[in-house]
């Protein structure tokens, strides 16, 4: 690899990423912050830059200063492997602003607000179309879960095999368990792939 690891600094770790997606205000940044080893960071792109197609600017023509923000955190899973968690913008049509955002992701967590499940349909559709593995995490506000998992699965018309978990995005253990469920699914798929 040209230019790699030629310096005296400690060797660069390998990096991987998982996306935390879902509708606006569903708790994506909260989840990132609950498990990240750093206070979540934010990077913003100006919408007026980055070679937008005209269609992408429909409805925002007046807002020359509009930005789209990406919040993220990090977990050092070992000395030489770092996992980044990206809380994707609520409006999935802005993901292109980081053109590699969904490329090379291990998988995704789709956070769902039981009161507004439709706001997460677009994210589910996005990952299904691209064959990116995901799990559904239902964020109970104030930790309350009024609906059983099966009702939520039906409401979201999920394909079989997609795990649905109840979670509290404010709780570290709860968010960790969601990530573990995603990685367990990835491992199961990898093992099935290896056996076939």
């Amino acid at each position, binding site marked *: 690899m040209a230019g790699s690891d030629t310096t005296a600094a400690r060797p660069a770790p390998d990096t991987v990423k998982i996306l935390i997606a879902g509708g606006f205000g569903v708790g994506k940044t909260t989840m990132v912050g609950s498990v990240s080893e750093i206070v979540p960071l934010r990077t913003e792109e100006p919408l007026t830059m980055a070679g937008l197609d005209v269609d992408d600017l429909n409805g925002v023509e007046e807002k020359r200063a509009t930005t789209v923000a990406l919040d993220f955190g990090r977990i050092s899973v*070992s000395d030489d492997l770092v996992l980044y968690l990206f809380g994707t913008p609520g409006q999935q049509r802005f993901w292109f602003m980081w053109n590699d955002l969904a490329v090379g992701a291990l998988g995704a967590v789709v956070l769902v607000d039981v009161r507004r499940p439709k706001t997460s349909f677009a994210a589910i559709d996005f990952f299904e179309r691209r064959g990116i593995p995901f799990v559904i995490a239902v964020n109970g506000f104030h930790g309350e879960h009024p609906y059983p998992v099966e009702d939520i699965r039906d409401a979201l018309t999920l394909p079989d095999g997609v795990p649905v978990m109840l979670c509290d995005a404010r709780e570290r253990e709860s968010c960790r368990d969601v990530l573990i469920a995603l990685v367990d699914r990835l491992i199961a798929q990898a093992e099935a792939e290896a056996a076939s």
Partner: protein
Amino acid sequence: MGGSDSAGRLVRPFTLTGGRTRPSRADFTLITTVTAADPQPEGAARPQPEHARILRLCAEPVAVAELAARLDLPMSVVVIMLCDLLEAGRISIHPPHPVNRTTPDLDLLQKVREGLGRL
């Protein structure tokens, strides 16, 4: 009204790139790791202030997204400056771990699983 201020904050960065809005190379993803070359190339000119800031921030390996956040600059701007630094031999880069859906890396996944289990 903070409108004009925030507009300035976001447009001004492109003066750092000489008005360029596109990177000259495609090496940099959000989680590509960047490290300042140590020592810096011999005979290199003094870096411009924003380049010097980047070099300080990546004395130890750091991901491009983190650099952008810590510089409070759009990633698109930071990447253009990183292209300049890479071409000048001032930084090295480490690409993300490749993810291949058809041949998943079981060892990698187990490692992530173990790391999460320790949280």
